[in-house]
């Protein structure tokens, strides 16, 4: 068994500026927030974030200047906390490109990468301006059926996933909804798994992501917080409220990031 356990600083340190990074989880749930905080501390730049539906993770990386593009079907905090203020501001001021997808087209693009093909046909999208706005091609069915939208492959340079449990070789268990995490692990060139706990062996029948797809394993209890981690903790409504309130202005966001993220001991602020 190859021991892939490392530190968050090292795992995140291997991500180059400009990388396409897929983030696991969905909206307020099982987002890899500790890893996202580390990205902020290391001052990465130019990331293209990939996710079906993001919230705090995407919003924070936009606020911190780490993300320059977001490929997602939805970015928002759902009903409890509303729109994503920093993402909004980034797109509205032109520092972040909204590569809006259908959630299903994020999946289609990841499927194409996972299956080693340049594009994936996708049903639907008729009547949507997204086809033209995003430059999604329509292609003819070579067997004479109707044409279909072709979504280009999305091969993330890295997938960053937070799970409940992993072993040192990367076999990862996900309790509750798996969202697109498994697909992201298949589509990405490198996979970083942060886990609530690293154990000697994960029950094989419960393994969602086989270790041979994983490059780095980091034990991070609370690694999804302030988002939820099914079976371990709920989302932290106070923290999310504080962030979304602070993030309404660039100054507020900066102060929050300095006080609550950069000031956290143990990791250099980086570049």
């Amino acid at each position, binding site marked *: 068994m190859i021991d892939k356990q490392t530190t968050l600083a090292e795992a995140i340190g291997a991500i180059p500026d400009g990388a396409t990074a897929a983030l696991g989880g969905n909206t307020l749930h099982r987002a890899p927030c500790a890893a996202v905080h580390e990205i902020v501390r290391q001052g990465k730049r130019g990331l293209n974030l990939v996710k079906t539906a993001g919230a705090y993770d995407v919003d924070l990386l936009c606020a911190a200047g780490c993300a320059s593009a977001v490929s997602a079907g939805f970015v928002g905090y759902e009903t409890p906390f509303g729109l994503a203020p920093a993402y909004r501001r980034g797109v509205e001021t032109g520092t972040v490109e909204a590569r809006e997808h*259908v959630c299903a087209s994020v999946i289609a693009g990841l499927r194409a990468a996972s299956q080693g093909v340049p594009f994936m046909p996708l049903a639907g999208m008729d*009547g*949507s301006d997204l086809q033209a706005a995003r430059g999604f091609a329509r292609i003819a069915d070579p067997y004479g059926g109707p044409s279909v939208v072709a979504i280009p492959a999305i091969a993330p340079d890295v997938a960053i996933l937070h799970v409940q449990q992993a072993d040192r070789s990367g076999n990862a268990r996900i309790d509750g909804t798996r969202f697109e995490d498994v697909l992201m692990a298949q589509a990405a060139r490198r996979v970083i798994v942060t886990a609530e706990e690293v154990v000697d062996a994960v029950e094989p029948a419960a393994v969602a992501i086989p270790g041979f797809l994983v490059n780095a394993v980091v034990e991070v209890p609370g690694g999804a917080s302030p988002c939820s981690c099914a079976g371990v903790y709920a989302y932290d409504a106070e923290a999310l409220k504080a962030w979304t309130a602070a993030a309404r202005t660039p100054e507020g966001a900066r102060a929050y990031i300095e006080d609550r993220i950069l000031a956290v001991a143990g990791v250099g602020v980086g570049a």
Partner: protein
Amino acid sequence: MSEESFGPPEMMAVALARLLRNGETVFHGVASPLPMVATLLAKRLHAPDLVYLSIAGGVDASPSRLPASTVDPVLLEGARATVTLAELFDLSARGRLDVAFLSGVQIDGRGRVNMSAIGPFARPTVRLPGGAGSALLMPTAKRVLLWRAKHDPRVFVDELDFVTAAGNVERVVTPLCVFRRAEDRLVVETIHPGVSPDVVRVETGFPVEVGSKTPVTAPPTPEELAVLEELDPGRVRASEF
């Protein structure tokens, strides 16, 4: 709240629930408290064999409490099976999803929605969250039910800034009325009790025919209200208002 009284959250939850039929496969995604409540309500009332599907991945979940986030893991509780979001999109894509609940920041008179941007798409005045699964689900689900907890001319517009999704919209439920799509236009099917036709006309940005002869939505029955209260004592149904 007594069982006899009701407001827009109760009227909307009940109106949405009534649109669901027994045995149908029904899906909602993120940020969908009213559809969650309506689906669970329909299952307890007239549609026990309805298959309740959600982005949280549960099949026929019976959650111990209703969450504010409709992706919450509590929506796996009591589920008979789990499915991935990808599998749910596939189900719709191959024409086997009966009902999808969707919404729009803007909704036009053809039942199309904008969830993307106010102003130019590339550099908008207001960047919206995005349509999530809408552009796949609206053209492929058999019946699309739109809901929106706000009914004013900024929501119900004559022209969308951007068409995020268009498709098989059958009805639109608002705090004021129920629209039905006839041909390619939304028409007022019923006005909710106590709402004046003038208000519907003024608050709708596209032309609608509505007047004293427009039928009134049947108010929630005591049974509907009782089951709703039992299902949703925390009033998640009101969280969108």
